[in-house]
């Protein structure tokens, strides 16, 4: 059975290879091949899942070792896979949602002449992401980690002719690279500490390492997670990443890749468990980000950017949960999966809307669309209810658990985190309601696009609708299924689990959650439901304006890194040319000058030559005598 694992990665990889090297002759069939191979991967995933369910909790993990990747004195890196419950969860999410989005893209990218390549990139991404979650050591994980980074780079910049897209892609890659520093340093520390970086040995031995070392590793891993999962302070790329085609935003920047950070932390549970300081930092990052993202989400008029902000904040929840330790890991993953469903659904919905509105993204130019694209409305609505945590829908279960766990952390810490998560929930409800209202309700604020032809909103083709429906189902049912099918028990062998007891009983927490959710919705309704939405954004409060600019993060980065860096490089180029090179050229020049001066002595007069001879002899004699004297 375990020999199938390689195929999970292999199938989409093959697809990528075929599609990218195949050339124009595959333009017709390319998208089908891509979708098929993604589906194959999903099918294998299901097969393995079924097989896994058949086994006892302890012997569920499967291992497959292909070959030694880097065999060097004292340094062994294998191409080897580990499929346990955690990985399996991801495999299903990735291949499942992945396949749906492949299907969706068939319709969405229909009119793009580079569709074949788009599917090639998508397959590449799926392969890399699966490699990431299937790796059995950190170096191979790093392989996948960079792989998804590359795929994301290619897909964000898919419309390369748009400078904004190209820039966004570059930015995403670079910010991720900063995170990667963390991952590679973490691996280095592991290697020097444990002599290996395979999950098994490292995690087992993690207890024996010194506190400081573990904290260092933890923080470095967190840095990596921040990069990949767009957490403060490395969050700046996610908003711009929305330049990519919407399916990409749905798959990579909502459902799967951005959650890799959460996977990394949960996977390294043992290390973090042994390094409370690192855990604390993790929770802080999570908390900050969930507020940050939420606030940004409130201010954006670009529907995708609003969703991006929400993604940021939802992942904040997951990171926070992961930071809570055994009481949170499971729920982090659970929220991750549910979020995968509803956020992907929301994005696909947004895409569908844009599809109908001549790719208009400004919500202030939508309005009253519910009648024109009913299916989109419904699916989007369900996703909306899920994300705000409407009781019974998936988001409710997962998020509520996280909030409980946050309180259960105990002490001041617990209170603060709990409060933050609650506040986050309220804001979530607020901005999602805002999105909902601005898009589907109220009067039409449509405007003709650049070419002057007014939008004719219509329902999207079936290939796009079906995935939306399926995802909607997932976002409705997912939570309940997990809750009652025993997601906790499923993951517990891998991540460990202990039940957290919030100081105020679980019921109370739930009550609060619902309450704040209602408040949030209410506020939003008062602001956007009752009175008409201005077609041009009002100036708004200072906070609003800051939030529109992503809370000035880019301005900061630009001022510090871009401008500073430019000056640095410019001055270095100057130094290189004038100083380093100048010294050498200077020496050469001075020798030349000396030569020119000495040359003057050769003045052509025999008598002066005679003088030099005479003088030379005199010196010679003097020197000889002197030698004898001393």
């Amino acid at each position, binding site marked *: 059975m375990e020999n199938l694992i390689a195929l999970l990665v292999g199938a989409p990889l093959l697809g990528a290879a075929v599609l*990218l090297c195949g050339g124009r002759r595959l333009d017709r069939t390319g998208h089908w091949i891509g979708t098929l191979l993604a589906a194959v991967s999903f099918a294998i995933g299901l097969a393995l899942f079924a097989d896994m369910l058949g086994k006892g909790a302890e012997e569920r993990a499967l291992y497959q070792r292909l*070959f*030694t*990747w*880097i*065999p*060097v*004195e*004292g*340094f062994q890196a294998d*191409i080897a896979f580990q499929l346990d419950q955690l990985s399996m969860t991801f495999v299903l999410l990735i291949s499942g949602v992945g396949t749906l989005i492949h299907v969706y893209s068939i319709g969405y990218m229909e009119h793009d002449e580079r569709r074949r390549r788009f599917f090639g990139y998508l397959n590449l991404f799926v392969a890399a992401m699966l490699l990431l979650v299937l790796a059995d050591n950190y*170096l191979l994980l*790093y*392989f996948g*980690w*960079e*792989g998804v980074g*590359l795929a994301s780079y290619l897909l964000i*910049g898919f419309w*390369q*002719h748009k*400078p904004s897209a*190209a*820039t966004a892609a*570059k930015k995403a*890659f*670079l910010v991720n*690279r*900063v995170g*990667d*520093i963390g991952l*590679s*340093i973490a*691996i*280095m*520390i592991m*290697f*020097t*500490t*444990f*002599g*290996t970086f395979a999950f098994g*040995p*490292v995690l*087992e*031995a993690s207890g*024996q*390492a*010194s506190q400081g*070392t573990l904290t260092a590793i933890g923080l470095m891993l967190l840095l990596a997670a921040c990069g990949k999962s767009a957490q403060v302070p490395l969050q700046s790329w996610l908003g711009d990443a929305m330049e990519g085609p919407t399916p990409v935003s749905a798959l990579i920047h909502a459902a799967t890749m951005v959650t890799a950070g959460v996977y990394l932390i949960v996977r390294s549970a043992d290390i973090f468990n042994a390094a409370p300081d690192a855990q604390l930092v993790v929770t802080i990052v999570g908390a900050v980000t969930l507020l940050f993202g939420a606030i940004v989400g409130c201010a954006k008029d670009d529907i995708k950017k609003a969703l991006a902000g929400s993604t940021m904040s939802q992942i904040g929840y997951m990171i926070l949960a992961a930071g809570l330790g055994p009481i949170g890991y499971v729920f982090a993953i659970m929220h991750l999966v549910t979020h995968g469903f509803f956020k992907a659904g929301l994005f696909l919905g947004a895409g569908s809307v844009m599809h109908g509105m001549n790719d208009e993204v400004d919500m202030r130019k939508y309005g009253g669309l519910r009648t024109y694209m009913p299916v989109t409305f419904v699916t989007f609505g369900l996703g909306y209810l899920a994300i705000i945590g409407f009781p019974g829908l998936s988001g409710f279960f997962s998020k509520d658990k996280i909030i409980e766990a946050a309180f259960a952390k105990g002490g001041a810490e617990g209170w603060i985190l709990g409060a933050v998560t609650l506040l986050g929930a309220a804001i979530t409800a607020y901005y999602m309601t805002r999105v909902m209202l601005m898009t589907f309700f109220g009067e039409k604020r449509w405007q003709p696009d650049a070419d002057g032809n007014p939008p004719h909103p219509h329902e999207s083709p079936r290939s796009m609708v079906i995935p939306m429906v399926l995802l909607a189902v997932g976002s409705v049912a997912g939570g309940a299924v997990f809750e009652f099918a025993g997601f906790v028990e499923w993951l517990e062998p891998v991540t460990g689990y202990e039940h957290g007891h919030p100081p105020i009983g679980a019921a109370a927490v739930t009550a609060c959650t619902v309450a704040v959710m209602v408040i949030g919705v209410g506020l939003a309704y008062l602001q956007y439901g009752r009175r008409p939405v201005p077609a041009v954004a009002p100036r708004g409060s200072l906070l609003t304006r800051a939030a529109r600019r992503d809370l000035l993060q880019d301005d900061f980065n630009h001022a510090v890194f871009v401008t500073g*860096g430019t000056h*640095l*490089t*410019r001055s*270095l*180029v100057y130094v*290189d040319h004038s100083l*380093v090179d100048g010294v*050498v050229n200077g020496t*050469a020049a001075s020798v030349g000058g000396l030569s020119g001066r000495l040359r003057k002595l050769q003045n052509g007069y025999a008598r002066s030559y005679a003088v030099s001879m005479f003088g030379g002899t005199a010196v010679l004699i003097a020197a000889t005598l002197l030698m004898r004297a001393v």
Partner: protein
Amino acid sequence: MFGTSTAFPLLTVTAAVPAVGAILTAAVPAARRTAAKWLALLVSLATLVLAGIVFARFEPGGERYQLTESYAWIKDFGVRYELGVDGIGVALIALTALLVPFVILAGWHDADPLETSSKRWRPTQGFFALILMVEAMVILSFEATDVFLFYILFEAMLIPMYFLIGGFGDRAHAGSDENAAAQRSYAAVKFLLYNLVGGLIMLAAVIGLYVVAGNFSLTEIAGARANGSLEIATSTERWLFLGFFFAFAVKAPLWPLHTWLPNAMGEATAPVAVLITAVVDKVGTFAMLRFCLGLFPEASKWATPAIVVLALISIVYGALVAVGQRDIKRLVAYASISHFGFIILGIFAMTSQGQSGATLYMVNHGISTAALMLVAGFLISRRGSRLIADYGGVQKVAPVLAGTFLIGGLATLSLPGIAPFVSEFLVLVGTYARYPVAGVIATTGIVLAALYTLVLYQRTMTGPVKEEVRKLPDLRPRELAVVVPLIAVLIFLGVFPKPLTDVVNPAVRHTMSDVQQKDPQPEVEAAK
């Protein structure tokens, strides 16, 4: 002392074939230009086959130096014609023999005579003959186990390189022809003088070595030092080490002795630039590993801190300056400087991972730079400009070219799955194991690498299509034949470097014992 001595002088033949080929190519009459090209290509392929045989005949488990040959040469100077390869040599010979055919293929039309030039002037024959001559000398220098023999080749290979740089400049040059010629000969002279000065200082050290050791046989001297029969005063050893290292650091090149490289690579044609950075410069790093560490272990350890610092400066500085370049080829040159920083760092980290990494790095950097530089060359030859600003939106008109260029770039920023990642990561791990701070600083290099690569790609390949670019044709079959195999090799070695590491590991083990260094042991013995 010597390992499996072969009846058949395989190493000599491997070097002799291109040398003879060079002479034959040069002898081809002016009219038969194409014949000369084919001859050169065939010869280089034959060399590749021979290199393959060497690779195959080399037994990783066997003696340190294999396929050895040893003949008396200049008794008076204590010089013998002594050849032998260890794993590192084998790997680099393979690299050289692998790249040259592509260099020749890529430079197919670079040296076609202009209509104006006189009938007796035979640039094409000269161009390919010189390339083959360089190949011969480089290969032999990787084989030499006699310091003097190595020195002679180290110096002699400057001459053909010099003519390649100065004689066959990049036709795509900003500015007038005179200006171009002036800059080209400036670059050539700069190249030659830098390396000549380095070489001459090394000459002083070589003579000094003779005075203290009495012969030049690497194995004998190292052996004598090991068993204590040859004592060298500490100060003397340090001076000699510095003499050698200076020459290699110029060649490598190490900051602040690097400024000749951008000029040389900028002015030379892309294939020649590849020859410089991918092949000839490797002799420098190779020599550090074999001669500096092999002959002067103590001095090497003494100098390590300073060298590590310089290497770090090279890494960061090279990358930053690369970001600021306006000329594609100069950008690649500075990128190479940064990479050479990694190689030297790996060598002097004195850990198995570091040195294996450094050796792999030499090979991988050679191939990846070749890929990137040759594609860049194709691009430049199309548009006739080296300035980044003159491009934009190329991927729209020439997707394959852009794609290969991107892969080359990704290799340069050492993305996992492509060969350079393996070596770079090994270097980093190896360095961190001994000098954590240095390791961390070096790691920042991976961001900077991404920066200059992606900036280059974005500015040239993406965005709206520039008017002058609109007409550019995509890669031609000949050019594909150059790029595709290189990329294939890169990806293969990125996923399965074992064939290489198998030959390199034993050599590294020997070097480590030369410098009497043990890898730092992990704090916690993980439950394996």
